[in-house]
Protein backbone atom coordinates (compact mmCIF):
# COMPACT_ATOMS: atom_id res chain seq x y z
CA UNK A 1 0.00 0.00 0.00
CA UNK A 2 2.82 2.37 0.95
CA UNK A 3 4.57 1.66 -2.32
CA UNK A 4 1.44 2.59 -4.26
CA UNK A 5 1.11 5.81 -2.33
CA UNK A 6 4.78 6.63 -2.86
CA UNK A 7 4.28 6.15 -6.55
CA UNK A 8 2.01 9.21 -6.46
CA UNK A 9 4.06 11.18 -3.92
CA UNK A 10 4.40 14.21 -6.21
CA UNK A 11 0.63 14.44 -6.27
CA UNK A 12 0.53 14.12 -2.48
CA UNK A 13 2.99 17.00 -2.10
CA UNK A 14 0.78 19.15 -4.31
CA UNK A 15 -2.31 18.20 -2.32
CA UNK A 16 -0.50 19.16 0.90
CA UNK A 17 0.40 22.60 -0.47
CA UNK A 18 -3.25 23.17 -1.41
CA UNK A 19 -4.41 21.86 1.96
CA UNK A 20 -2.12 24.17 3.95
CA UNK A 21 -2.76 27.32 1.89
CA UNK A 22 -6.53 26.88 1.77
CA UNK A 23 -6.85 25.95 5.44
CA UNK A 24 -4.99 29.09 6.56
CA UNK A 25 -7.23 31.33 4.43
CA UNK A 26 -10.20 29.23 5.48
CA UNK A 27 -9.87 30.53 9.05
CA UNK A 28 -10.87 33.99 7.80
CA UNK A 29 -13.48 32.51 5.48
CA UNK A 30 -15.21 30.72 8.37
CA UNK A 31 -14.81 33.45 11.00
CA UNK A 32 -16.04 36.14 8.60
CA UNK A 33 -18.99 33.92 7.62
CA UNK A 34 -18.16 34.06 3.91
CA UNK A 35 -17.89 30.33 3.25
CA UNK A 36 -20.00 30.48 0.12
CA UNK A 37 -17.83 33.27 -1.25
CA UNK A 38 -15.10 30.62 -1.39
CA UNK A 39 -17.40 28.27 -3.32
CA UNK A 40 -18.52 31.03 -5.70
CA UNK A 41 -14.93 32.14 -6.42
CA UNK A 42 -13.94 28.53 -7.11
CA UNK A 43 -16.89 28.16 -9.45
CA UNK A 44 -16.05 31.43 -11.22
CA UNK A 45 -12.53 30.17 -11.62
CA UNK A 46 -13.84 26.98 -13.23
CA UNK A 47 -15.97 29.09 -15.59
CA UNK A 48 -12.76 30.88 -16.59
CA UNK A 49 -11.07 27.58 -17.41
CA UNK A 50 -14.16 26.46 -19.33
CA UNK A 51 -14.11 29.67 -21.35
CA UNK A 52 -10.44 29.10 -22.20
CA UNK A 53 -11.21 25.54 -23.35
CA UNK A 54 -14.22 26.74 -25.34
CA UNK A 55 -12.21 29.45 -27.09
CA UNK A 56 -9.48 26.91 -27.71
CA UNK A 57 -12.06 24.64 -29.35
CA UNK A 58 -13.05 27.51 -31.63
CA UNK A 59 -9.45 27.82 -32.68
CA UNK A 60 -8.81 31.15 -30.94
CA UNK A 61 -5.11 31.33 -30.25
CA UNK A 62 -3.14 33.35 -27.69
CA UNK A 63 -4.45 33.31 -24.14
CA UNK A 64 -6.62 30.23 -24.71
CA UNK A 65 -3.47 28.15 -24.40
CA UNK A 66 -3.26 29.34 -20.80
CA UNK A 67 -6.47 28.43 -18.97
CA UNK A 68 -4.73 29.40 -15.71
CA UNK A 69 -4.78 33.02 -16.80
CA UNK A 70 -8.54 32.81 -17.36
CA UNK A 71 -9.01 31.09 -14.00
CA UNK A 72 -7.01 33.79 -12.21
CA UNK A 73 -8.79 36.69 -13.94
CA UNK A 74 -12.24 35.24 -13.20
CA UNK A 75 -11.36 34.37 -9.60
CA UNK A 76 -9.82 37.77 -8.88
CA UNK A 77 -12.71 39.62 -10.51
CA UNK A 78 -15.09 37.64 -8.29
CA UNK A 79 -12.94 38.22 -5.22
CA UNK A 80 -12.84 41.98 -5.83
CA UNK A 81 -16.59 42.07 -6.45
CA UNK A 82 -17.39 40.23 -3.22
CA UNK A 83 -14.71 42.18 -1.35
CA UNK A 84 -16.45 45.43 -2.29
CA UNK A 85 -19.75 44.23 -0.90
CA UNK A 86 -21.08 42.13 -3.76
CA UNK A 87 -24.06 44.21 -4.89
CA UNK A 88 -25.05 45.40 -1.42
CA UNK A 89 -25.21 48.97 -2.70
CA UNK A 90 -27.87 47.89 -5.18
CA UNK A 91 -29.93 46.56 -2.27
CA UNK A 92 -29.31 42.87 -2.99
CA UNK A 93 -28.42 40.81 0.11
CA UNK A 94 -24.80 39.56 -0.07
CA UNK A 95 -25.73 35.88 0.22
CA UNK A 96 -28.17 36.22 -2.69
CA UNK A 97 -25.42 37.72 -4.87
CA UNK A 98 -23.11 34.86 -3.94
CA UNK A 99 -25.84 32.38 -4.89
CA UNK A 100 -26.40 34.08 -8.24
CA UNK A 101 -22.66 34.11 -8.99
CA UNK A 102 -22.31 30.44 -8.02
CA UNK A 103 -25.29 29.24 -10.08
CA UNK A 104 -24.49 31.32 -13.15
CA UNK A 105 -20.78 30.42 -13.08
CA UNK A 106 -21.55 26.71 -12.67
CA UNK A 107 -24.07 26.71 -15.51
CA UNK A 108 -21.78 28.74 -17.75
CA UNK A 109 -18.90 26.34 -17.15
CA UNK A 110 -21.09 23.33 -18.03
CA UNK A 111 -22.48 24.99 -21.16
CA UNK A 112 -19.05 26.07 -22.39
CA UNK A 113 -17.53 22.66 -21.71
CA UNK A 114 -20.40 20.91 -23.48
CA UNK A 115 -19.27 22.60 -26.66
CA UNK A 116 -15.56 22.61 -25.95
CA UNK A 117 -14.23 19.33 -24.71
CA UNK A 118 -15.09 15.83 -23.64
CA UNK A 119 -17.69 15.26 -20.95
CA UNK A 120 -14.97 14.25 -18.48
CA UNK A 121 -13.69 17.85 -18.36
CA UNK A 122 -16.64 18.88 -16.25
CA UNK A 123 -15.94 16.13 -13.74
CA UNK A 124 -12.32 17.24 -13.52
CA UNK A 125 -13.36 20.83 -12.76
CA UNK A 126 -15.76 19.66 -10.08
CA UNK A 127 -13.75 16.84 -8.51
CA UNK A 128 -10.25 17.86 -9.58
CA UNK A 129 -7.50 15.52 -10.55
CA UNK A 130 -5.22 15.36 -7.57
CA UNK A 131 -3.40 12.31 -8.87
CA UNK A 132 -2.42 14.21 -11.99
CA UNK A 133 -0.35 16.77 -10.06
CA UNK A 134 3.26 16.76 -11.19
CA UNK A 135 6.39 18.19 -9.59
CA UNK A 136 6.12 21.21 -11.88
CA UNK A 137 2.51 21.75 -10.74
CA UNK A 138 3.59 21.55 -7.10
CA UNK A 139 6.27 24.14 -7.72
CA UNK A 140 3.69 26.44 -9.31
CA UNK A 141 1.39 25.93 -6.31
CA UNK A 142 4.30 26.70 -3.97
CA UNK A 143 5.21 29.81 -5.94
CA UNK A 144 1.69 31.13 -5.37
CA UNK A 145 1.03 29.80 -1.87
CA UNK A 146 4.28 30.76 -0.13
CA UNK A 147 4.04 34.51 -0.91
CA UNK A 148 0.36 34.47 0.08
CA UNK A 149 1.16 32.76 3.39
CA UNK A 150 4.02 35.20 3.97
CA UNK A 151 1.63 38.10 3.37
CA UNK A 152 -0.73 36.60 5.94
CA UNK A 153 2.06 36.28 8.49
CA UNK A 154 3.31 39.83 7.91
CA UNK A 155 -0.12 41.49 7.89
CA UNK A 156 -1.85 39.27 10.42
CA UNK A 157 -2.73 42.25 12.64
CA UNK A 158 -4.31 44.18 9.81
CA UNK A 159 -6.35 41.27 8.40
CA UNK A 160 -7.50 40.35 11.89
CA UNK A 161 -8.50 43.89 12.85
CA UNK A 162 -10.54 44.67 9.72
CA UNK A 163 -12.21 41.25 9.97
CA UNK A 164 -13.04 41.54 13.66
CA UNK A 165 -14.09 45.20 13.99
CA UNK A 166 -13.92 47.27 10.83
CA UNK A 167 -15.52 50.38 12.36
CA UNK A 168 -12.86 50.76 15.02
CA UNK A 169 -10.11 49.93 12.54
CA UNK A 170 -11.41 52.76 10.36
CA UNK A 171 -11.30 55.27 13.23
CA UNK A 172 -7.65 54.33 13.85
CA UNK A 173 -6.84 55.27 10.28
CA UNK A 174 -6.87 51.84 8.67
CA UNK A 175 -7.88 51.78 5.01
CA UNK A 176 -10.49 49.14 5.60
CA UNK A 177 -11.53 48.78 1.95
CA UNK A 178 -7.92 48.23 0.90
CA UNK A 179 -7.20 45.58 3.54
CA UNK A 180 -10.48 43.88 2.83
CA UNK A 181 -9.73 43.73 -0.89
CA UNK A 182 -6.19 42.57 -0.18
CA UNK A 183 -7.55 39.69 1.88
CA UNK A 184 -10.02 38.75 -0.86
CA UNK A 185 -7.24 39.07 -3.45
CA UNK A 186 -5.11 36.47 -1.66
CA UNK A 187 -8.19 34.26 -1.37
CA UNK A 188 -8.95 34.56 -5.10
CA UNK A 189 -5.35 33.87 -6.06
CA UNK A 190 -5.06 30.68 -4.01
CA UNK A 191 -8.47 29.41 -5.10
CA UNK A 192 -7.72 30.04 -8.80
CA UNK A 193 -4.56 27.93 -8.73
CA UNK A 194 -5.78 25.26 -6.30
CA UNK A 195 -9.03 24.82 -8.24
CA UNK A 196 -7.29 23.57 -11.37
CA UNK A 197 -5.84 20.57 -9.54
CA UNK A 198 -8.19 19.99 -6.64
CA UNK A 199 -11.53 20.95 -8.21
CA UNK A 200 -14.32 23.07 -6.75
CA UNK A 201 -15.43 20.50 -4.19
CA UNK A 202 -12.03 19.84 -2.59
CA UNK A 203 -11.03 23.50 -2.51
CA UNK A 204 -14.33 24.32 -0.82
CA UNK A 205 -13.63 21.52 1.66
CA UNK A 206 -10.16 22.83 2.53
CA UNK A 207 -11.54 26.35 2.93
CA UNK A 208 -14.25 25.32 5.36
CA UNK A 209 -13.94 22.01 7.21
CA UNK A 210 -10.40 22.34 8.67
CA UNK A 211 -11.20 25.83 9.96
CA UNK A 212 -14.42 24.53 11.50
CA UNK A 213 -12.40 21.76 13.19
CA UNK A 214 -10.03 24.44 14.45
CA UNK A 215 -12.92 26.55 15.72
CA UNK A 216 -14.29 23.52 17.57
CA UNK A 217 -11.00 22.54 19.23
CA UNK A 218 -9.01 25.74 19.74
CA UNK A 219 -9.55 28.72 22.00
CA UNK A 220 -7.21 31.19 20.37
CA UNK A 221 -6.47 32.46 16.88
CA UNK A 222 -3.07 30.74 16.81
CA UNK A 223 -4.80 27.56 18.00
CA UNK A 224 -7.37 27.73 15.20
CA UNK A 225 -4.69 28.22 12.55
CA UNK A 226 -2.65 25.33 13.98
CA UNK A 227 -5.57 22.89 14.21
CA UNK A 228 -6.87 23.91 10.77
CA UNK A 229 -3.50 23.31 9.09
CA UNK A 230 -2.91 20.05 11.00
CA UNK A 231 -6.37 18.64 10.29
CA UNK A 232 -6.14 19.61 6.59
CA UNK A 233 -2.73 17.95 6.35
CA UNK A 234 -3.91 14.80 8.14
CA UNK A 235 -7.04 14.63 5.96
CA UNK A 236 -4.96 15.03 2.80
CA UNK A 237 -2.48 12.30 3.80
CA UNK A 238 -5.08 9.79 5.05
CA UNK A 239 -7.60 10.49 2.28
CA UNK A 240 -4.89 10.20 -0.34
CA UNK A 241 -3.46 7.02 1.19
CA UNK A 242 -6.88 5.36 1.24
CA UNK A 243 -7.94 6.45 -2.22
CA UNK A 244 -4.89 5.25 -4.16
CA UNK A 245 -4.75 1.55 -3.19
CA UNK A 246 -8.53 1.19 -3.05
CA UNK A 247 -9.03 2.96 -6.36
CA UNK A 248 -11.30 5.64 -4.89
CA UNK A 249 -11.51 9.23 -6.14
CA UNK A 250 -8.94 11.16 -4.07
CA UNK A 251 -10.88 14.42 -3.61
CA UNK A 252 -14.00 12.89 -2.06
CA UNK A 253 -11.84 10.55 0.06
CA UNK A 254 -9.97 13.56 1.50
CA UNK A 255 -13.26 15.38 2.10
CA UNK A 256 -14.66 12.33 3.89
CA UNK A 257 -11.65 12.24 6.23
CA UNK A 258 -11.98 16.02 6.85
CA UNK A 259 -15.62 15.46 7.75
CA UNK A 260 -14.73 12.65 10.17
CA UNK A 261 -12.12 14.86 11.88
CA UNK A 262 -14.69 17.65 12.29
CA UNK A 263 -17.24 15.17 13.65
CA UNK A 264 -14.66 13.88 16.16
CA UNK A 265 -13.93 17.46 17.22
CA UNK A 266 -17.59 18.14 17.95
CA UNK A 267 -17.97 16.02 21.13
CA UNK A 268 -14.56 17.23 22.31
CA UNK A 269 -15.88 20.78 22.15
CA UNK A 270 -18.94 19.78 24.13
CA UNK A 271 -16.71 18.14 26.76
CA UNK A 272 -14.49 21.26 26.87
CA UNK A 273 -17.48 23.42 27.69
CA UNK A 274 -18.60 21.25 30.62
Amino acid at each position, binding site marked *: MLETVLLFREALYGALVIAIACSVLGVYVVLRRIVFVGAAIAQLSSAGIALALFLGGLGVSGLTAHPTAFAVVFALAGAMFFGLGGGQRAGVPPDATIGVAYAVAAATAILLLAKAAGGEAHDILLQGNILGITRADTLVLLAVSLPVLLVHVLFYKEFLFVS*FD*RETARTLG*YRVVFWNLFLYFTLGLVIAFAMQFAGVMLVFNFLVIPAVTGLLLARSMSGIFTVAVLSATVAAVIGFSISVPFDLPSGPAIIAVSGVLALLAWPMRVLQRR
Partner: protein
Amino acid sequence: MTALISFDHATLGYGRRVVLSDISFDIPTGDFLGLVGPNGAGKTTILRAILGTLVPQAGTVTKASGLRFGYVPQRDSVDYNFPLKVVDVVLMGRYDRIGLMRRPSRRDRDLACAALEHVGILDLADRPLGALSGGQKQRALIARALVGDPNVLVLDEPTTGMDLVSTTQILGLVRELHERDNLTVLMVSHALNEVANYVERIALVVERGFRIGTVAQIMTEETLTQMYGIPVDVDEMHGHRIVVARRPPLEPGARRHA
Protein backbone atom coordinates in the same frame (compact mmCIF):
# COMPACT_ATOMS: atom_id res chain seq x y z
CA MET B 1 -11.17 76.26 26.64
CA THR B 2 -9.59 75.10 23.38
CA ALA B 3 -11.95 73.59 20.84
CA LEU B 4 -10.87 70.08 19.88
CA ILE B 5 -13.55 69.79 17.20
CA SER B 6 -15.44 72.60 15.45
CA PHE B 7 -18.44 72.36 13.14
CA ASP B 8 -18.80 75.55 11.14
CA HIS B 9 -22.06 75.74 9.16
CA ALA B 10 -21.58 72.10 8.23
CA THR B 11 -24.09 70.31 6.03
CA LEU B 12 -23.92 66.54 6.34
CA GLY B 13 -25.39 63.78 4.23
CA TYR B 14 -24.80 60.93 1.84
CA GLY B 15 -24.66 61.48 -1.92
CA ARG B 16 -27.36 64.01 -2.72
CA ARG B 17 -29.32 63.31 0.46
CA VAL B 18 -28.94 65.95 3.16
CA VAL B 19 -29.33 64.64 6.71
CA LEU B 20 -28.42 67.77 8.69
CA SER B 21 -27.80 71.24 7.35
CA ASP B 22 -25.94 74.29 8.58
CA ILE B 23 -24.90 73.06 12.03
CA SER B 24 -22.28 74.88 14.08
CA PHE B 25 -20.87 73.87 17.43
CA ASP B 26 -17.58 73.22 19.24
CA ILE B 27 -16.41 70.36 21.42
CA PRO B 28 -13.89 71.93 23.83
CA THR B 29 -11.20 70.11 25.80
CA GLY B 30 -12.63 68.37 28.87
CA ASP B 31 -16.20 68.36 27.54
CA PHE B 32 -18.62 65.56 28.42
CA LEU B 33 -21.14 65.71 25.61
CA GLY B 34 -24.10 63.48 24.97
CA LEU B 35 -25.17 63.22 21.32
CA VAL B 36 -28.79 62.22 21.73
CA GLY B 37 -31.73 61.64 19.46
CA PRO B 38 -34.07 59.04 18.04
CA ASN B 39 -32.79 56.33 15.71
CA GLY B 40 -32.30 57.56 12.16
CA ALA B 41 -32.18 61.25 13.11
CA GLY B 42 -28.52 61.75 12.20
CA LYS B 43 -26.46 60.93 15.29
CA THR B 44 -24.27 58.48 13.39
CA THR B 45 -23.87 61.04 10.59
CA ILE B 46 -22.48 63.60 13.04
CA LEU B 47 -20.34 60.91 14.63
CA ARG B 48 -18.86 59.98 11.24
CA ALA B 49 -18.09 63.62 10.51
CA ILE B 50 -16.34 63.89 13.88
CA LEU B 51 -14.34 60.71 13.31
CA GLY B 52 -13.41 61.89 9.83
CA THR B 53 -15.09 59.09 7.89
CA LEU B 54 -17.67 61.48 6.38
CA VAL B 55 -16.73 64.69 4.57
CA PRO B 56 -19.26 67.54 4.96
CA GLN B 57 -21.21 68.51 1.84
CA ALA B 58 -20.81 72.16 2.79
CA GLY B 59 -19.16 74.10 5.61
CA THR B 60 -16.27 72.66 7.58
CA VAL B 61 -15.50 70.26 10.40
CA THR B 62 -12.08 71.04 11.81
CA LYS B 63 -10.12 69.12 14.39
CA ALA B 64 -7.16 70.07 16.56
CA SER B 65 -3.90 68.74 15.15
CA GLY B 66 -2.80 65.41 16.59
CA LEU B 67 -6.29 64.68 17.83
CA ARG B 68 -6.71 61.00 18.62
CA PHE B 69 -9.99 59.22 19.23
CA GLY B 70 -10.61 56.26 21.48
CA TYR B 71 -13.61 54.68 19.83
CA VAL B 72 -16.01 52.28 21.52
CA PRO B 73 -18.27 50.83 18.79
CA GLN B 74 -21.78 49.50 19.22
CA ARG B 75 -21.41 46.12 20.85
CA ASP B 76 -23.05 44.19 18.00
CA SER B 77 -20.62 45.60 15.42
CA VAL B 78 -17.89 43.43 16.94
CA ASP B 79 -17.77 39.75 15.95
CA TYR B 80 -17.61 37.71 19.16
CA ASN B 81 -17.18 34.53 17.12
CA PHE B 82 -13.46 35.28 16.91
CA PRO B 83 -11.64 33.32 19.64
CA LEU B 84 -9.77 36.31 21.02
CA LYS B 85 -8.65 36.84 24.58
CA VAL B 86 -9.69 40.10 26.22
CA VAL B 87 -6.09 41.32 26.36
CA ASP B 88 -5.64 40.61 22.64
CA VAL B 89 -8.71 42.70 21.83
CA VAL B 90 -7.42 45.55 24.00
CA LEU B 91 -4.07 45.40 22.19
CA MET B 92 -5.87 46.26 18.94
CA GLY B 93 -6.19 49.80 20.29
CA ARG B 94 -2.41 50.09 19.82
CA TYR B 95 -2.13 48.41 16.42
CA ASP B 96 -1.70 51.70 14.57
CA ARG B 97 1.04 52.75 16.99
CA ILE B 98 2.78 49.37 16.70
CA GLY B 99 2.94 49.77 12.92
CA LEU B 100 2.87 47.47 9.92
CA MET B 101 4.60 44.09 10.00
CA ARG B 102 5.44 44.36 13.71
CA ARG B 103 4.17 42.36 16.66
CA PRO B 104 2.99 43.87 19.97
CA SER B 105 5.88 44.28 22.41
CA ARG B 106 6.08 43.56 26.14
CA ARG B 107 5.37 47.25 26.73
CA ASP B 108 2.22 47.08 24.59
CA ARG B 109 1.00 44.14 26.66
CA ASP B 110 1.76 46.01 29.90
CA LEU B 111 -0.21 49.01 28.63
CA ALA B 112 -3.12 46.74 27.70
CA CYS B 113 -3.12 45.25 31.20
CA ALA B 114 -2.96 48.74 32.71
CA ALA B 115 -6.02 49.76 30.64
CA LEU B 116 -7.88 46.67 31.82
CA GLU B 117 -7.00 47.52 35.40
CA HIS B 118 -8.24 51.06 34.79
CA VAL B 119 -11.69 49.76 33.89
CA GLY B 120 -11.68 47.13 36.62
CA ILE B 121 -11.41 43.86 34.68
CA LEU B 122 -7.71 42.96 34.78
CA ASP B 123 -8.67 39.57 36.20
CA LEU B 124 -10.50 38.82 32.93
CA ALA B 125 -7.48 39.53 30.69
CA ASP B 126 -7.00 35.92 29.58
CA ARG B 127 -10.68 35.06 29.20
CA PRO B 128 -12.24 34.81 25.73
CA LEU B 129 -14.06 38.05 24.89
CA GLY B 130 -17.15 36.14 23.79
CA ALA B 131 -17.48 34.53 27.22
CA LEU B 132 -17.94 37.86 29.03
CA SER B 133 -21.22 39.45 30.10
CA GLY B 134 -22.54 42.50 28.23
CA GLY B 135 -21.15 44.93 30.81
CA GLN B 136 -17.77 43.21 30.89
CA LYS B 137 -17.55 43.25 27.07
CA GLN B 138 -18.26 46.98 27.13
CA ARG B 139 -15.51 47.51 29.72
CA ALA B 140 -13.09 45.55 27.53
CA LEU B 141 -13.97 47.74 24.53
CA ILE B 142 -13.53 50.88 26.66
CA ALA B 143 -10.11 49.56 27.75
CA ARG B 144 -9.21 49.09 24.08
CA ALA B 145 -10.24 52.69 23.39
CA LEU B 146 -8.14 53.95 26.31
CA VAL B 147 -4.97 51.98 25.58
CA GLY B 148 -4.15 54.19 22.58
CA ASP B 149 -4.00 57.21 24.92
CA PRO B 150 -6.77 59.19 23.19
CA ASN B 151 -7.72 62.87 23.54
CA VAL B 152 -11.39 62.08 23.08
CA LEU B 153 -13.29 58.97 24.16
CA VAL B 154 -16.18 58.30 21.79
CA LEU B 155 -18.85 55.79 22.77
CA ASP B 156 -21.54 54.70 20.31
CA GLU B 157 -24.71 53.54 22.09
CA PRO B 158 -22.72 52.06 24.98
CA THR B 159 -25.70 50.78 26.95
CA THR B 160 -27.96 49.36 24.24
CA GLY B 161 -29.37 46.01 25.29
CA MET B 162 -27.97 46.21 28.81
CA ASP B 163 -29.86 45.68 32.05
CA LEU B 164 -30.30 48.45 34.62
CA VAL B 165 -27.32 47.43 36.76
CA SER B 166 -24.88 47.13 33.85
CA THR B 167 -26.14 50.40 32.35
CA THR B 168 -25.58 52.24 35.62
CA GLN B 169 -22.12 50.73 36.06
CA ILE B 170 -20.98 51.54 32.52
CA LEU B 171 -22.26 55.12 32.62
CA GLY B 172 -20.69 55.51 36.09
CA LEU B 173 -17.38 54.25 34.72
CA VAL B 174 -17.49 56.69 31.81
CA ARG B 175 -18.19 59.60 34.15
CA GLU B 176 -15.39 58.44 36.42
CA LEU B 177 -12.98 58.39 33.46
CA HIS B 178 -14.08 61.89 32.54
CA GLU B 179 -13.67 63.28 36.05
CA ARG B 180 -10.60 61.33 37.15
CA ASP B 181 -8.58 61.65 33.94
CA ASN B 182 -10.16 64.90 32.70
CA LEU B 183 -10.92 62.99 29.49
CA THR B 184 -13.08 64.59 26.83
CA VAL B 185 -16.03 62.27 26.27
CA LEU B 186 -18.59 62.09 23.48
CA MET B 187 -21.38 59.63 24.12
CA VAL B 188 -23.91 58.79 21.41
CA SER B 189 -27.23 57.43 22.61
CA HIS B 190 -30.92 57.32 21.83
CA ALA B 191 -31.73 57.08 25.55
CA LEU B 192 -32.16 60.69 26.71
CA ASN B 193 -33.04 59.74 30.30
CA GLU B 194 -29.87 57.69 30.73
CA VAL B 195 -27.50 60.19 29.20
CA ALA B 196 -28.94 63.36 30.71
CA ASN B 197 -27.97 62.37 34.23
CA TYR B 198 -24.32 61.76 33.43
CA VAL B 199 -23.19 64.23 30.76
CA GLU B 200 -22.56 67.96 31.12
CA ARG B 201 -23.90 69.04 27.73
CA ILE B 202 -26.38 67.57 25.30
CA ALA B 203 -26.48 67.83 21.52
CA LEU B 204 -30.03 66.90 20.58
CA VAL B 205 -30.51 65.61 17.05
CA VAL B 206 -33.97 65.10 15.64
CA GLU B 207 -35.05 64.80 12.02
CA ARG B 208 -33.71 67.93 10.34
CA GLY B 209 -33.20 69.60 13.71
CA PHE B 210 -30.19 70.16 15.93
CA ARG B 211 -29.74 71.94 19.24
CA ILE B 212 -26.85 71.95 21.70
CA GLY B 213 -26.57 73.29 25.23
CA THR B 214 -26.04 72.42 28.88
CA VAL B 215 -28.24 69.73 30.37
CA ALA B 216 -30.30 72.44 32.11
CA GLN B 217 -30.82 74.28 28.82
CA ILE B 218 -31.86 71.22 26.83
CA MET B 219 -33.84 69.32 29.45
CA THR B 220 -36.82 71.66 29.51
CA GLU B 221 -40.39 70.82 28.55
CA GLU B 222 -40.42 73.65 26.05
CA THR B 223 -37.25 72.61 24.21
CA LEU B 224 -37.98 68.89 24.19
CA THR B 225 -41.62 69.36 23.15
CA GLN B 226 -40.50 71.56 20.30
CA MET B 227 -37.67 69.26 19.19
CA TYR B 228 -39.50 65.92 19.45
CA GLY B 229 -42.80 67.32 18.24
CA ILE B 230 -44.83 65.64 21.00
CA PRO B 231 -45.78 66.99 24.43
CA VAL B 232 -43.31 65.89 27.12
CA ASP B 233 -42.99 66.39 30.86
CA VAL B 234 -39.63 66.88 32.57
CA ASP B 235 -39.67 65.93 36.25
CA GLU B 236 -36.99 65.67 38.86
CA MET B 237 -36.59 62.81 41.30
CA HIS B 238 -33.73 62.57 43.83
CA GLY B 239 -31.73 65.03 41.73
CA HIS B 240 -32.27 63.05 38.49
CA ARG B 241 -34.08 64.58 35.55
CA ILE B 242 -36.65 62.33 33.96
CA VAL B 243 -38.34 62.93 30.63
CA VAL B 244 -41.76 61.40 30.10
CA ALA B 245 -43.77 61.64 26.90
CA ARG B 246 -47.31 62.66 27.70
CA ARG B 247 -49.81 59.91 26.93
CA PRO B 248 -52.40 61.06 24.39
CA PRO B 249 -55.92 61.21 25.88
CA LEU B 250 -58.31 58.41 24.92
CA GLU B 251 -60.73 59.20 22.15
CA PRO B 252 -64.30 59.65 23.50
CA GLY B 253 -66.07 56.32 23.29
CA ALA B 254 -62.86 54.29 22.94
CA ARG B 255 -62.87 51.09 24.98
CA ARG B 256 -60.20 50.58 27.61
CA HIS B 257 -58.75 47.09 27.29
CA ALA B 258 -58.04 45.14 30.44
